[in-house]
């Protein structure tokens, strides 16, 4: 299919999917999108698999030219996307024409935008993932952030562009406030901190510093005190882990985090709040609130139900039909005649029982 061309790369634009799972035991970071909620919805709008690779755009966005008619969807933070100078609607699939250009004018809300293209961004998978891990120089487009002049291949859309365009989800707009409350579950090393330190962590507000990237967010605020130092024998690090080294300032570990580390972790950001964390930018204020692991997992189930709702809303009905066509073409015997035996209605759905005479 067609290509998209990067005229200007922006601050940091990378190809990312759901991440490189299964290689942490060999020291390979997971990488993948920082804000998985926005990426998944962008893909659903574009008729892609939810895990498909998208462009992750950071603060100052790129200028991209479409070399063919395509359907795109931009979600996540509002970085001032314009198509040929006109404001581009977010959280909506849009038909773009060959030769048209999208640009990003200014950060209005949030920190990262996600651009999905119907058909997906076609780069080779490395260890099962298209995610760019820039420090390890693997994945994405040549293992690096995009540069001016790069051209990315786009796959075949799952349906006609007419069917895919102008679709939106009824999403309760997240406002990307500059003061946010992030929910965490305590541990795994909460006991390494003094009661006072724990109290400080949950009752203070921490500012996002300039040292915040895909690896982690360094925060600044009141010092969190340890019982006896911030070092431990290195162990595993999950996404959202809140590390507190000896200096007492928290660091929230994100998508490109190293797989293991030797600092105490006071708490871990819950899955449904990771997108909020990913949209925080330098100067934003963060306070932490403790929930139980059961609550966190229930919140995640609720979020999945919401995504499932979008999935149904946006279903094109094509995949099931295509599968049926494909299977009848390959495996099923030829049908000679078909007779409907009876029909009935239940729960607003209609059912039909048929009998088919097939070829031997």
């Amino acid at each position: 299919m067609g290509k998209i061309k990067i005229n200007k790369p922006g601050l940091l634009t990378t190809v990312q999917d759901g991440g490189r799972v299964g290689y942490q035991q060999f020291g390979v970071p997971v990488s993948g999108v920082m804000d998985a909620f926005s990426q998944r919805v962008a893909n659903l709008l574009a008729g892609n698999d939810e895990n498909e690779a998208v462009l992750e755009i950071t603060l100052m966005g790129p200028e991209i030219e479409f070399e063919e008619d395509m359907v795109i969807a931009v979600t996540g933070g509002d970085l001032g996307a314009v198509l040929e100078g006109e404001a581009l609607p977010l959280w909506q699939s849009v038909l773009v024409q060959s030769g048209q250009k999208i640009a990003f004018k200014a950060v209005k809300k949030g920190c990262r935008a996600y651009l999905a293209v119907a058909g997906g961004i076609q780069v080779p998978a490395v260890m099962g993932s298209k995610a760019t891990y820039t420090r390890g120089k693997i994945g994405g487009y040549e293992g690096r952030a995009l540069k001016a002049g790069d051209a990315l291949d786009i796959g075949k859309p799952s349906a006609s562009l007419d069917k895919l365009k102008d679709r939106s989800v009824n999403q309760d707009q997240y406002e990307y406030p500059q003061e946010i409350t992030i929910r965490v579950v305590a541990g795994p090393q909460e006991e390494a901190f003094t009661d006072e330190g724990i109290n400080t962590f949950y009752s203070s507000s921490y500012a996002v510093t300039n040292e915040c990237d895909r690896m982690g967010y360094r925060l600044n605020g009141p010092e969190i005190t340890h019982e006896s130092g911030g070092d431990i024998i290195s162990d595993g690090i999950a996404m959202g882990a809140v590390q507190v080294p000896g200096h007492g300032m928290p660091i929230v570990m994100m998508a490109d985090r190293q797989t293991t580390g030797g600092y105490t972790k006071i708490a871990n950001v819950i899955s449904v709040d990771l997108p909020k964390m990913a949209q925080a930018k330098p100067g934003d204020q963060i306070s932490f609130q403790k929930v139980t692991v059961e609550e966190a997992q229930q919140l995640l189930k609720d979020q999945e139900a919401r995504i499932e709702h979008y999935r149904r809303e946006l279903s094109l009905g094509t995949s099931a039909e295509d599968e049926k066509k494909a299977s009848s073409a390959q495996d099923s015997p030829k049908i000679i005649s078909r007779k409907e035996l009876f029909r009935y209605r239940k729960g607003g759905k209609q059912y039909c029982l048929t009998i088919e005479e097939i070829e031997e």
Partner: protein
Amino acid sequence: MYESTRYLVAGDRALVMEFGNEISTTINEKIRAMSIAIDQKNVAGISEIVPTYRSLMIHYDPLVITFNNLKEQMMELEKELKNIELPAPDVMIIPVLYGGEYGPDMTTVMEHNSLTEEDVIKIHTSRDCLIYMLGFTPGFPYLGGMDERIATPRLETPRTKIKGGSVGIAGKQTGIYSIDSPGGWQLIGWTPVPLYDPELENPFLLKAGNYVRFEAITEEEYQEIKPQIENRTYQCKVMPLDGGESRG
């Protein structure tokens, strides 16, 4: 090792089984046994496991299995561990070119320990080193078991670029840089065998729980294996760890 394993919450999609609070081969054997048991059990919802010095991090999908359910299953599995037949760990023989341009800090290590180059090589190749975990950079092994007679402090000023494959000493540890990276280890040699090659189906030479044995090779021997290394057909020699040491 703790009397009973601690089960720690690491967010809503990872659980940590912590077996102790020191670095020991006994704990590592337990981690290795548990990793093998989990692999065999094929528990639905576990996405990956990460062994470290004294714990095992289990990444899971909470939409498939909850923390409490996973913890119960792991506690049951722990009870069955003694019934699991563990294969002996593998010892991977790593060919190393010692000294000269390959090991610019060889002299420092010799002088610090009042040894000849021959002694340093002999001591460095004499022991099998346990791979406690991989991390830092893809494929980088954290090794244990180096003979302390060649222990040498790190460089005061780290190098900004060290060639992947460089074999070094930092205090009582030895290790191999898996990719070009900055670092402060005293470099005594270099292995031409890549520890990490993302183009291969299995990109990693080493695995936690196995062992590394260094083997000195000459420049001539290197030239002999070089074509195989370059066309990616070279296989390091592997042997099972000598009996008796594999289980605690």
